[in-house]
């Protein structure tokens, strides 16, 4: 099954733990998203039920998707491929298991505190100080395990996926601590414009320096494996990695172009947003050339199919992102549902798809048995694909209606009836994605615990 230099025995406890974490919180996160979408359609639905009002449901949904579903899914794959690429064993499965436990305890605290109304009220940084500390602690545990594994490696060359996985964990621990202003426990914020700058430095980097590098790491591992072909260019992949670090870290202020932040900062954010085409195309050219002429192999492997689709979504979301940073475009597309569409393509269409692809790719390898149901996984793939593209179309239309109304000076209550039917479609699509999450959880549970397949 494995090469001579591969570790001989591993139970992949950490990878399994993060896999189950991702599958479980995907269901909870999408249920919150569905409830939020339903409340936008029928605002009185949860009237007088404090812990279910939209203002509490929305941050729970966002934080759970980020830290409950996508990140653990990508980490699960990382805890599988990092030891294999380094020809060694994971530094400590026990530490990994403790990390999984700490991670889930953190998420429970996050949900309970946010639902109870304890929020710092900053977008993407709503969690209160004790939960912030737990998040930083959990990332630190992951980092210790990964870096110790790297230090014990038998393979001298660090494959690009290792670079991405380690960088994502370090950068996020630092960026999260800064963005959540953890040195001010009471407010978790600075004052005035500096706080907005710092918040969006974090808000965009939680995607660019956490989900993007972890997703790229998974794609760089899964696609060559599924195609049974070497990576098109390792040099190009390292160029993409370093250029991502240089370019992505400066673009958060493009969320504040209509705010009195310093002009030089706005210029940097716009220029670097457009320059994102460099790391994005370095990554995509590399992956797509590796898969050139091998789409049959991609389709034969459900994990690779998810991952490859995620790379196509990455193309869309990156082009969108660069364009949205242009002030003339942003006058129409900002502060409305167009941004929500963009976020869903990025987090679910790109990183979420690759996280699921990583899970489905490693599941047969960490359990030693075939996936419980390829049909269910395929069905989930199509449900998510239809859901994401549906979201994109519906929310894009709503965004244009809202953006145009804003430019024309129309008042909100005249616009709301115009977009109501689209909110119904949005909730329907949310139901599709919620259903897909349940199918995924069932398939993953059966694959790990109640799998009748033969051990390979």
């Amino acid at each position, binding site marked *: *099954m*494995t*090469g001579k*230099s*591969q570790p001989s025995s591993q139970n992949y406890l950490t990878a399994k733990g993060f896999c189950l974490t991702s599958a479980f919180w995907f269901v909870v996160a999408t249920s919150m998203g569905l409830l939020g979408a339903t409340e936008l359609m029928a605002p009185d639905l949860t009237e007088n039920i404090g812990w279910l009002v939209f203002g509490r449901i929305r941050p729970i949904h966002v934080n759970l998707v980020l830290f409950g579903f996508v990140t653990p899914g990508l980490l699960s794959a990382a805890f599988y*491929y990092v030891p*294999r*690429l380094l020809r060694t064993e994971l530094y400590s499965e026990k530490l990994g298991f403790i990390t999984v436990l700490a991670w889930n305890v953190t998420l429970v605290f996050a949900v309970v505190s946010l639902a109870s109304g304890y929020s710092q009220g900053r977008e993407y940084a709503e969690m209160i100080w004790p939960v912030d500390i737990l998040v930083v602690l959990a990332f630190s545990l992951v980092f210790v395990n990964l870096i110790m594994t790297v230090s014990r490696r038998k*393979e*001298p*060359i*660090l*494959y*690009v*996926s290792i670079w991405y996985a380690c960088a994502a964990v370090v950068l996020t621990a630092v960026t999260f601590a800064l963005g959540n202003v953890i040195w001010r426990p009471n407010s978790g914020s*600075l004052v005035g414009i*500096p706080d907005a700058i*710092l918040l969006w430095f974090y808000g965009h980097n939680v995607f660019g320096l956490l989900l993007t590098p972890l997703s790229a790491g998974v794609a760089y*591992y899964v696609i*060559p*494996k599924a195609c*049974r*072909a*070497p*990576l*098109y*260019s*390792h*040099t190009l992949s*390292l160029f993409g990695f*370093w250029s991502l*670090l240089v370019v992505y*870290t400066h673009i958060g202020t493009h969320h504040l172009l209509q705010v009195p932040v310093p002009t030089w900062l706005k210029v940097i954010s716009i220029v670097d947003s457009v320059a994102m085409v460099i790391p994005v195309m370095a990554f995509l050219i590399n992956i797509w050339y590796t898969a050139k002429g091998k*789409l*049959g*192999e991609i*389709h*034969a*492997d459900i994990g690779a199919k998810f991952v490859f*689709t995620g790379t*196509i979504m990455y193309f*869309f979301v990156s*082009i969108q992102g660069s*364009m949205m940073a242009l002030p*003339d*475009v942003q*006058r*129409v*597309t900002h502060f409305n549902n167009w941004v929500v569409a963009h976020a869903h*393509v990025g987090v679910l269409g790109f990183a979420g798809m690759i996280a699921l692809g990583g899970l489905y790719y490693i599941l047969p390898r960490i359990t030693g048995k075939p996936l419980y149901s390829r049909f269910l996984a395929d069905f989930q793939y199509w449900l998510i*694909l239809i859901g994401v*593209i549906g979201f*994109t*179309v519906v929310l*894009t239309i709503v*965004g*244009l209606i809202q953006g*145009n109304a804003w*430019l*024309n000076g129309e008042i909100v209550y005249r616009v709301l009836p115009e977009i109501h039917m689209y909110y119904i479609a949005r909730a329907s699509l949310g139901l599709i994605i919620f259903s897909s999450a349940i199918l995924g959880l069932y398939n993953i549970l059966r694959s790990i615990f109640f799998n009748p397949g033969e051990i390979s």
Partner: protein
Amino acid sequence: MYFPYFITYMALGFVISLVVFFWALKNGQFKEQQRARFLPLEDERKASVEKVSNIKRYEIYALMFLALAGLAASAAVLVFSLLNANI
């Protein structure tokens, strides 16, 4: 006055990045790039490739259609935004 904190952070980030980069350079991480391309394959299973059925071929066409629909939606937004930018 908040710039000193931001500049300190940026300078620290820059220095740490440089340290890691030069460690990689000195450590030979940018050598043997041809061998590095094959690293994921060194534990390759000797499994046969699953035959692609016609259903999967149709799936590719459907996927391409959906992908093009997404691209068309994005292009439409861009054109609409640019046309309305000078309102």
